[in-house]
């Protein structure tokens, strides 16, 4: 079986070499980078635009954005036929290709987020380092932790008010600089598809903008969802340990803070959701109106073969339902969690409908290809490019987030 043959069903006339080459991992990649960009924008809404209600979630989003960054490379590594040569993008980049921008954009973005995180957590690093230094007989774990935190301070031990204010100014500058970079991070992903003139569905100048808007939407939704989930865990822990540490906030206090943050975040989610939907519908209307040569087969794919994927799941469950959920008054945390989950589903389906949908028809415009997602891996290939490969990519950021949280705790005000 050649690459792609195992999961492609071809109907009518397709060129002999045509298979679905860009599969679930290429759907995961823009999804994950979208989360990265979106989480960063959410964090910046507080740091740059001073939306005070978002303070609780700002730190959280920044750390999550950083945890997602290495994960964004994972789907690419799983997709490449020669992953060990992946580094070539950094060594001999061909900048006429959108993919070559990957090296620069990722490095820049990584440095900005890392620096911003350093400024945000410098006080914590210093405090931890000093605390561990004061411990006389350190265990091995404490010794390693002391080394780590001391190294992370990079020697800047001054935590006076003056120094911390300087930190805050640096964070503001970095967050501001980071917004266009985050947009570029996902704009270039949209450009990868939008610039392929050979593909009638992908070719549109709107693609980079659509991708950016839906990326921000997904980032906000993910942060909201994870925030709600971690708050649940906190409430459970606070209730259990209340008698040990009376200074811990009560579950009621936690709950009211949570609703406040969630309501504010939901507002921004809706704004970007409107933008994303507007652009996507604009693209669809234009295609139908101008009815180019490819419209015949595109119409068949969009309104017939992929109807459920596009209109029922993506637009219906992923856009319309969350609209209703977030706009009806009296938003509860539980409703917000449901809305966020649906939004994430919608954004995932949007990536699916672009990547897989774009390969659902042949370049001959006279045939179709159907993607059969490999469920049970019976080879390395069907693992990497199948359901389990996608699940691996989905799970890793949470693992990383848990690890990073040990060094840079997201809820700093408590133990």
């Amino acid at each position: 079986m050649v690459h792609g043959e195992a999961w492609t069903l071809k109907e009518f006339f397709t060129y002999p070499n045509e298979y679905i080459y860009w599969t679930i991992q290429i759907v995961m990649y823009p999804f994950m980078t979208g989360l990265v960009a979106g989480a960063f924008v959410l964090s910046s809404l507080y740091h740059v635009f001073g939306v005070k209600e978002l303070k609780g979630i700002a730190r959280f989003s920044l750390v999550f954005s950083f945890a997602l960054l290495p994960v964004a490379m994972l789907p690419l590594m799983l997709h490449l036929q020669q992953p060990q040569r992946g580094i070539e993008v950094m060594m001999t980049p061909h900048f006429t290709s959108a993919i070559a921008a990957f090296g620069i954009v990722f490095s820049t973005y990584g440095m900005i987020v890392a620096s911003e995180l350093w400024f945000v957590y410098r006080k914590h690093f210093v405090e931890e380092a000093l605390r561990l230094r004061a411990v006389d007989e350190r265990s091995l774990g404490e010794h390693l932790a002391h080394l780590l935190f001391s190294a992370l301070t990079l020697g800047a031990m001054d935590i006076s008010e003056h120094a911390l204010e300087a930190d805050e100014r640096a964070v503001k500058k970095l967050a501001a600089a980071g917004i266009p970079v985050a947009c570029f991070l996902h704009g270039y992903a949209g450009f990868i598809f939008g610039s392929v003139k050979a593909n009638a569905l992908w070719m549109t100048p709107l693609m980079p903008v659509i991708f950016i808007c839906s990326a921000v939407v997904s980032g906000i939704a993910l942060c909201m969802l994870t925030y709600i989930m971690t708050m649940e865990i906190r409430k459970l822990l606070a209730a259990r340990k209340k008698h040990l540490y009376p200074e811990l906030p009560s579950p009621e206090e936690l709950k009211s803070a949570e609703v406040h943050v969630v309501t504010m975040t939901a507002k921004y989610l809706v704004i970007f959701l409107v933008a994303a939907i507007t652009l996507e519908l604009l693209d669809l209307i234009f295609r139908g109106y101008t009815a180019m040569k490819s419209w015949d087969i595109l119409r068949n794919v969009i309104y017939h073969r992929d109807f459920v994927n596009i209109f029922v799941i993506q637009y219906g469950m992923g856009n319309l339902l969350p609209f209703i959920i977030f706009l009806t008054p009296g938003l509860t945390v539980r409703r917000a969690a449901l809305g966020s989950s649906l939004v994430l589903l919608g954004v995932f389906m949007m990536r699916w409908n672009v990547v897989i949908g774009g390969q659902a028809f042949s370049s001959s415009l006279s045939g179709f290809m159907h993607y059969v997602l490999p469920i049970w891996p019976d080879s390395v290939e069907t693992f990497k490019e199948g359901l389990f490969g996608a699940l691996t990519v989905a799970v890793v950021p949470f693992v990383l987030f848990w690890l990073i949280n040990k060094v840079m705790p997201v809820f700093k005000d408590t133990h």
Partner: protein
Amino acid sequence: MLLIIAGVLVVRKILVPADFGVGARGYMYGWHRPSNEEDWKKVTIKYRTAEYCKQCHLEKYDEIKKSPHANINCENCHGPALGHPDDPKSLTIDRNRELCARCHFRLEYPTSGRGKIRGIDPKTHHPQLECVTCHWPHDPRKAGHGGATSAAAAGGPIVPGLSAAPAAVRTTRERRGAHDIA
């Protein structure tokens, strides 16, 4: 920061081939390792064309060139010459029906050269026989091996079409009009 950049440059020096750069077609279309062009030129040639076969097999070459099959390359039916006669010492002779049916499976396509080729329906036209039983491929105007094909397979001499063909088999020209055209 500088350390990182220095590190990257060192790694790059080691891993990237020294001649990698911009070629004759500019950065957009010519960004590559130039020595790769020579790599492609060094690919082994498999098909040597009839002009190569002619050097030793002149009789057969002339026979074919005077026949309706003049433009068919020897290697289409005999496989690539490669290093023949050193390696391989002899070439295969593909006597499969499917080979001949590539052109001679009759298709009624008037607007294509295919429509001008005389042909049969392989399913009904002597399906158990090899085509060469009755038709001599080097000159289809002549009769085939008759039963000699099995002798050839057993290592016996191949009887050229010019010598006595089995009496029961007439030449294709004589039997014209009896083709099974689908």
